[in-house]
């Protein structure tokens, strides 16, 4: 459905989606510097013209990549990376889940950054991609390390939110509810929300605008 051609070389695609409990994420990193990177940049709006999320991995950062040949997503040294390392307010703007969907489908399994937009962080959690927040110093150090040593393996532990890479070790944070969801495998809450449906009906029945004023 999203078979719109990409002007770019193919990204690794079709990696299986996250499932079950997520206690640990590890892999190579991709450093993407800059604050306030909005979801229009992660996934330009024309790629939302579809009735499915399939194929979105081909369009992640498409316009930024075309505008800048040196964009980290164009850098072959970071091919196959599964941990994205970003700065402040990543994922601000539009609530489009297409942005984290594209990243997950491109093989990313976690994001480590200075801070995230709430909607983005929540959308990413709903599809099994934790967003860890760490200090400016930690992120800058991690980005510099990956820029000079792209093969370094980064490991993010969900329970402790400790991020390690080679000799580097920094403590990040993850909102407790999201952390617990990843650890228990209940990061997709639909079934939990249906668990006590009688209580949902009870709330609906007592709201005056539903019951009738």
């Amino acid at each position, binding site marked *: 459905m999203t078979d719109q051609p990409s002007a770019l070389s193919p990204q690794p695609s079709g990696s299986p989606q996250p499932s079950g409990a997520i206690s640990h994420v590890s892999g190579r990193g991709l450093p993407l510097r800059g604050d306030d990177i909005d979801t229009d940049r992660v996934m330009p709006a024309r790629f*939302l013209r579809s009735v499915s999320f399939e194929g979105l991995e081909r369009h992640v950062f498409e316009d930024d990549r075309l505008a800048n040949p040196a964009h980290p997503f164009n850098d072959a040294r970071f091919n196959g990376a599964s941990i994205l390392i970003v700065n402040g307010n990543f994922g601000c703007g539009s609530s489009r889940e297409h942005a984290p969907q594209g990243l997950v489908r491109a093989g990313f399994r976690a994001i480590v950054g200075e801070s995230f937009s709430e909607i983005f962080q929540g959308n990413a959690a709903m599809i099994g991609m934790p967003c860890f927040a760490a200090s400016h110093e930690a992120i800058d150090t991690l980005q510099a390390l990956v820029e000079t040593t792209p093969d370094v393996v980064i490991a993010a532990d969900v329970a402790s939110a400790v991020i390690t890479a080679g000799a580097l070790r920094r403590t990040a944070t993850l909102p407790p509810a999201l952390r617990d969801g990843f650890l228990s495998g209940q990061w997709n809450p639909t079934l939990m929300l249906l668990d006590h449906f009688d209580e*949902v009906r009870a709330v609906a029945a007592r709201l005056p605008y539903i019951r009738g004023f």
Partner: protein
Amino acid sequence: MADTLFHKVWNAHAVRTLPSGQTQLFVGLHLVHEVTTPQAFDMMRQHGWKVAFPGRTFATVDHIVPTSTQRRPFLDLMAEEMTTALERNCREAGIRLWAPDSDNQGIVHVIGPELGLTQPGMTIACGDSHTSTHGALGAISFGIGTSQVRDVLTSQCLALDPLKVRRIDVTGQLHRGVYAKDVILTIIRRLGVQGGVGFAYEYGGATLDAMTIDERMTICNMSIEGGARIGYVNPDDTTFAYLRGRPFAPPGDAFDRAVAWWRQMASDKAARYDDRVAFDAAAIEPTVTWGINPGQSVAVSEPIDASPDDEALAFMGFEPGARVQGTRIDVAFIGSCTNGRLSDLEEAARIVRGHHVAKHVKALVVPGSRAVKRAAEARGLHEVFIEAGFEWRGAGCSMCLGMNPDRLEGRQISASSSNRNFKGRQGSPTGRTLLMSPAMVAAAAIAGEVVDVREMLKGVPA
């Protein structure tokens, strides 16, 4: 105990505390559109899940609809496919849909209030970040992703953490030529595009009290641009007068009983806030953005800040310390969920009347809904715009975002009454957006460059 509207509404809709510690929150009104929902319906089909409360969800089409001609089938095959998918999903689930040929179609955040679906004390969710708009009527209203749309359809609930509440007081008299858009751009400039993360913004103070619901909607709409997922204004007599008689508002005596409940849900005078900030309305000037996020703005009389973001300057083609005033524009866009309501068009028309759009400018007026379009036409506004050289379009999101045929080309510069000046936002990866009030856009369209609307208003009767 004294409390805020945010907490009262939250508590009234809390179903239970989930094992994760999050709240299972009941969603009183769910609004859907064609872009962020087809995948949600597909996921439900895969699991065999049904829509739990089809009567609590309402749908329309806005993002992908063309605004030049809205005849079906759309020439744009993808727009047709997405619209057809929404029609099928709504039909199968028993969800009320205002399709492209309906009298009530329009931008979801324009039609919700207009139809009286949006009411004080509700929780409202929609797969669109500008859902914060509905907070103008005293609702707790926020944008969600597609997986959450699936959850609301399936359970009418979301798993959420509560937010802190920041009270933003605006007091004093706005000068002529200064609008709600300038107020919210000024708030975002000061508090930052990330300043609202973790907060719901409660707007109040004498300036807000004196504003119409349309103006309050412009302010609440852009809360998300300041990082706040939720923005709201406490319901008051202005709110109740706005709602009375609207199709989905409580009828007859029930309306008065509703008013009693709505008053009760407003923040108490003694409510405590997690943070408070204050703004002086009289100090606010017509404001324009110069950069690539909505916090990068200046008063039209000011030069760009001394220590700006180099990436933004390079993208926009501004020199440090330059002025936005005098920037030649290629496109003028009046519309969007921020500023596509009747009062926005009326104010723009006051400025346009008797003038002509500059020869090099492509100018569009896109009403936010069919109802706005009808009301504007009943007042003859379309003639004012058409005579001045504007294109008078059908309702939709149009050039706010690059999802339909209305797009910038190449490095065009647009004076836009919309909400986001992100790189590529208006459909061209290199296109440039200057956000401003609809009156400022109208003035720029006529002058062919960014001007101070206060100058132009000198010749317009107050």
